[in-house]
Each structure stands twice: as C-alpha cells, then as structure tokens.
C-alpha cells in the first residue's frame, strides 16, 4: 500500500468517524425528545416508560464511551482542573446573575427562597446540582465531545451544543433562551477546562438564580416538551 493509499484510507476513516459522531448526537437528542414529547404525552409521564428510556440512552452513551476508549477523566469527572473551570465560569456567572437580579428587582419578582415552596432550602442546591450534573454530562461529555470530533474545538461546535441544549427546552420560550445562553457558556468552558463538577455546580446555582429572579410565568414552571402545555 502506497502512502497515498494510506492517506486516502485514513481520510475515509475520519469521514466515517465524523458521520458516526453526528449520528450519535442525533440519537441522544432523539431519545431526549422522545422523553419530552412522547413519554409525557401518550405515556402520561409514566415513570416506568421514562426509566426505560433513561436506561436506553445512558447504556448507549456509556457503551459509546467504552468503544471510543474515553475514560471518566477524559469526560470531565476529575478534580485537578476544577479551579481552572471555576475561574472561567465565575465572571460570566456574576454578570448573568447581576442582570437577572436587576430584572427581578425591576419586575418585583425577587424571591430566593420561593423555589418549590415547602422544600428544604438545603434540598434545592442538592437537587439542582444533581440534575445539573446529569444534564451537563449528556450535553458536554457526550454531545460536546462528539461535536468536537466533527467540527473541532471552537465557535461552531460551541454554537451547535448551545442550539441542541436550547432545542431540548422547546417550546418554553424563556427557558429556551436561557439555556441557549447557558449552553454557550458551559460548552465554551468545557472545551477549555473539561470539568463536569464545576459545570454542575454552575448549572445548579444559575438555575436557582434564574427561578429566584425571573417572573414565574416567563419560565413556564421550568416545563419543557409536551408538559409545557399543562
């Protein structure tokens, strides 16, 4: 085999890999949309149906990581770059929080203890961070990493991740807009310092600030998919 043939084969393998990465993303997004639009409509939000779907999608993502030889450290489950990621996050978070607080103040909708009335204040960040970790894992450790395989690091893959994150929050307009902004920030930070714990913490905090500042009707009860309609 000549070097030209080897190069052609390598190029073909790269194209196939990009194609596979693209279909992996589509597959995970499809699963999420099935959960939001099908399970919550015809499945009436059945916990069994939802559990089956969650199992399918997580089994798929874990198997994909194994087949691609990705370790937990590669994915961002690590502590060594936590501070670096936190440093990248802190300024945009402070700016976004200031804007949100100003909006909340002007609308008279500030209320940092109103999230899920009756729930322990200690439970709020815990729930938010856990839910944030799950979302950031799927969004960054899977979708962002696959997007980088296709388009490389940079604006295009970051924009793609943010758009996907926003699409998953349709048809809730407030949340779609907020997640697009959040998606841009978290995808950019992950590409520079892949740390899921810092992103989960940021996700939980920003969710709490969002629901504590923006008037509740604008957030549609944080409902997405079919559930948004009631």
């Amino acid at each position: 085999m000549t070097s030209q043939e080897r190069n052609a084969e390598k190029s073909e393998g790269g194209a196939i890999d990009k194609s596979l990465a693209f279909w992996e993303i589509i597959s995970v997004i499809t699963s999420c949309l099935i959960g939001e639009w099908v399970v919550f409509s015809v499945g009436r939000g059945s916990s069994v149906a939802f559990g089956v779907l969650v199992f399918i999608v997580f089994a798929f993502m874990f198997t994909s990581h194994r087949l691609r030889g990705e370790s937990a450290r590669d994915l961002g489950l690590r502590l060594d770059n936590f501070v670096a990621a936190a440093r990248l996050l802190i300024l945009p978070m402070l700016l976004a929080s200031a804007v949100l607080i100003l909006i909340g103040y002007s609308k008279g909708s500030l209320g940092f203890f109103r999230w899920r009335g009756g729930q322990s204040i200690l439970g709020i960040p815990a729930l938010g961070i856990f839910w944030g970790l799950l979302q950031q894992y799927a969004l960054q450790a899977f979708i962002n990493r696959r997007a980088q395989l296709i388009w490389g690091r940079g604006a295009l893959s970051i924009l793609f991740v943010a758009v996907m994150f926003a699409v998953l929050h349709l048809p809730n307009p407030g949340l779609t807009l907020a997640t697009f902004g959040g998606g841009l920030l978290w995808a950019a930070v992950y590409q520079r310092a892949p740390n899921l714990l810092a992103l989960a913490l940021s996700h939980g905090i920003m969710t709490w600030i969002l629901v504590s500042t923006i008037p509740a009707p604008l957030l549609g009860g944080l409902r997405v998919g079919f559930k948004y309609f009631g």
Partner: protein
Amino acid sequence: MNQTRLFRLLIAKSIIETFFVGTLAVVFFYTAFPPQFHGWGEATPDSIAGWAVNHSAPWDRVELQLFVDGKFVASGTANLSRPDVVAAGWSKDEWHGYAFSAPPLSVGDHEARVYAIHESGGGIRQTLQLVGNPIRFSFHANGKLSELTSANDSSNPKSN
C-alpha cells in the same frame, strides 16, 4: 475505536427505541380507545334511540353524547330497558337502552352520531367512541324523524 461496533450500537438503539415508541403508542391507544364498546342506534319518529354496552364492565351504564351534523346536541346515559339486547346476547341485563329526544333541526337530511364516553388516565382524559354506525335521517316539518337508510349492522338485535 471500533467503528463497526459503534455502528451496530446505533442501529440497535434505533430499533429498540422504535419498539419502545410503538409500544407506548399501542398501550396509549388501547387505554384511551379500548375496543370494548358496542351498540346500535336508529332514528325513530320522536328520537335517536338505541343501546350501548361496555363489555369490560357489562353491569355499568354507558355515558353517551349525541352529535348531529358534527355538532354536540345532548348527553345522557344508556339506562333504559332493552330486553331485546339481552335476548340477542349483547348484554347481561336489559338496562342499556338510550333515547335522545328529537332536537330542533332544520327540515331536511341530517346525520346523527352517538358516542360512548370513556375515561382513562385516572380521570384526567376522556375520549369519545362511536357506538354503532352513523344514523342518517330526515327531519320533517311536523317535528318527526324518519331514517334515511336502514342500518345494515350485525349488532342490531332486531335483525338477529
């Protein structure tokens, strides 16, 4: 990286999810529109009348809604005596008949449809299922009805 295995994984996931969505759709349809309602109706001179039975709950009285020309007209319960329905083996007791009084209509031809109301999802969802066939009838100036076509329905106890 094993591209072939990843490719197979994608195919397998797609197939599993297709079955998953298909199962959800079938379960939903069976729950919301269970094939357990039977009945029959006709236009009598003074009413739209017939019978309706829920075979999964044969002792229950079926709630009904009458639509004429696609518009809701009245609701009621199939709880009138219809011994012929028992005799034909369609129900366990005779109290499954219904009769909706002739609604005020324009003179001419119309179509009535009688639907059984089915509750599912713990009462959060109600669906309508057509009982028997659509009933085509004429409304006359004297306020009387006459059926345009005789129902060719095997579930008509009169024909058994």
